[in-house]
């Protein structure tokens, strides 16, 4: 009788403990959404002109490039790797696009084919860095960091220090056009988000991402070609970077390597703040959408409050550290390099 009592006591404690952990995970999962609402509330009180239709459009327009970038990065971070090549690769995509469409520097006029060519080329470079990472057994951040430097060099080399002005009429339509009040660039990023969402939830590929991020050894032992999945992930990331670079060129109207400067960091911030863990296997594209909204609203609010643009990068740095520190706290015994 006594032991029976003891057993039920243990069972009760166990279920309570499980309940507590579940509640904690649920809280952590909904945290980004809560932060988003709190931020919107604070900004609409503090920053004048935040809660207006015009500013709503501005936010959506600021969101577009970051959202596209973070869709690519989400998959890379889900498998526990990282892609830092956006800075050089994005600049390369923007610079080469400006030289291939109708511009003021040379006589090229490939139109839409020029854009497609650039995106395919950038995707191939992504495949290359994926292969180097997988076959060479080199850490992804180092491979992509070097690729970024190389491609930034090629970008500047392509226009030889004299950026080309874009005169392609389609680009002006893209940068200024709206559809149902939402900028066309934002529509493009929403399409990319939908593709990423379908890839993540409806395909085998998406399931593998979470499995690899969680425990690579088990996935390997089940006979899945991990290397192929990883190369695909880097190709997808590069595709997104290429698209983001072209969008940057559309917005700026000039093909400079600076298009790529500062597009990686906000995207990493968005992914991490959204709740995708840097060690992999947790999170997803919906989290990244919320994260991207949070980062955009912070940036927008800082601009409205008249804070220097230099501070924005610093603020993002602090946010990433805080978000990562909060999300890794529970596994204290793990080794982190």
């Amino acid at each position, binding site marked *: 009788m006594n032991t029976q009592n003891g057993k039920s006591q243990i069972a009760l404690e166990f279920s309570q403990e499980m309940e507590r952990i579940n509640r904690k995970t649920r809280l952590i999962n909904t945290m980004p959404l809560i932060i988003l609402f709190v931020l919107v509330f604070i900004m609409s009180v503090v920053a004048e002109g935040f809660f207006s239709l015009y500013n709503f459009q501005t936010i959506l327009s600021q969101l577009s490039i970051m959202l596209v970038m973070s869709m690519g990065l989400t998959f890379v971070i889900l498998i526990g790797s990282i892609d830092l090549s956006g800075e050089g690769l994005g600049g390369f995509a923007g610079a080469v696009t400006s030289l291939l469409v109708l511009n003021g520097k040379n006589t090229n006029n490939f139109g839409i084919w020029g854009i497609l060519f650039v995106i395919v080329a950038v995707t191939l470079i992504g495949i290359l860095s994926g292969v180097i*990472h997988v076959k060479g*057994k*080199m850490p992804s951040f180092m491979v992509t960091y070097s690729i970024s430097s190389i491609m930034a060099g090629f970008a500047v*080399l392509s226009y030889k220090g004299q950026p080309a002005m874009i005169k392609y009429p389609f680009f002006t339509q893209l940068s200024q056009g709206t559809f149902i009040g939402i900028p066309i660039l934002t529509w493009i990023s929403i399409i990319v988000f939908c593709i990423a969402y379908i890839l993540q939830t409806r395909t085998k590929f998406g399931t593998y991402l979470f499995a690899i991020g969680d425990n690579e050894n088990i996935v390997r032992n089940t006979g899945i070609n991990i290397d192929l999945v990883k190369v695909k992930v880097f190709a997808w990331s590069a595709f997104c970077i290429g698209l983001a670079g072209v969008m940057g060129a559309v917005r700026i109207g000039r093909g400079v390597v600076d298009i790529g400067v500062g597009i990686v960091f906000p995207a990493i911030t968005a992914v991490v703040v959204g709740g995708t863990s840097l060690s992999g296997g947790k999170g997803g594209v919906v989290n990244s959408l919320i994260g991207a909204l949070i980062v955009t609203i912070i940036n927008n609010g800082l601009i409205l409050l008249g804070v220097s643009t230099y*501070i924005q*990068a610093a603020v993002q*740095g602090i946010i990433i550290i805080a978000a*990562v520190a909060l999300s890794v*706290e529970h596994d204290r015994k793990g080794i982190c*390099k």
Partner: protein
Amino acid sequence: MSNNKRNLKGVKTLFTKINKNDISTILTVVSLILIVIIFTSINPRFLSLYNIKNILLDCAPLLLMTIGVSCVLFLGSIDLSNGAVASCSAVMLTIMLPKFGAVSFVYVFFYGAIAGLINGVLHTKLKVPSFIATLCTQSIWQSIALLIAGGQPLSMTPDVWPLLKWGKFSIGPIPFMFIISIIFMGIFAVIQFKTPTGRTFLAIGCNERAARLIGLKISFSKITAFTLSGIGAGVAGIFFAVKLKSGIPTVGEQYNLMSIAAAVLSGVLLTGGKGNILLTFVGVALITAIQNGMNVIAVDGFWQKIVFGLIVVVAIYINSDRKNFKLIVK
């Protein structure tokens, strides 16, 4: 006969040992000699006394940053922030010198140490992976450098020039700055080989769990390594400012990748556990020779970025352990 065979086997194992352990160092030395020959044959002035002085002067800041970042690489971690720390300290020195005089060198030195310390604390105490922690601090220090410089290069006023005279001193073809960086290398080497903390660096890189079970002070060693990296970057920033007589807020940007490249070329493993502070000089010499040589034979500056990126990829590829199928590389 059998004796001969055994000898042959001995020679073979010797070669495989060399292959496995020092191939990148040997390759670096060989390519250094090759590059000197190539550049000299294109332009004989490459080996002139004046240009050697130039090369050594260029070596000095890169050497400081490389010995610093090597300490972090020994752990298997990485420091991506040292370029931004160098930029920030160059700007700080430019602003401080007219106000505080010679003491500002000390202040900037301590700034570097504190910047490194922050990296170390973020990494060890908050358990943030080192590359993301240092990526964030890089962004923060870069912002601060741009902010206090107002987004443009600051030049030093002529009244502080007497304080910068030491940058011009040289003993024969050896500049004073180079001697200082060699002294720093000596100090770092003593720390690596003679102190328990320094010897822990490589132990952590080899097997952190084992090092912890033995009872080594893991956190303290890690924080020390990051602080040393910060000191190297801070002093390199002082050198940049003194050499150019101005504080450019982006001066250290490209040196981050270059210092990692130099360290890897000298045989430091990115996964940690292998390397030698004194050998890093070989990597630094190669990088500086390539950079200087490309200037001497008038190659476009944009190519340098491409070349250094390629060098890093190739150097890591040579070093990486591809036969170990169980190894998981993220």
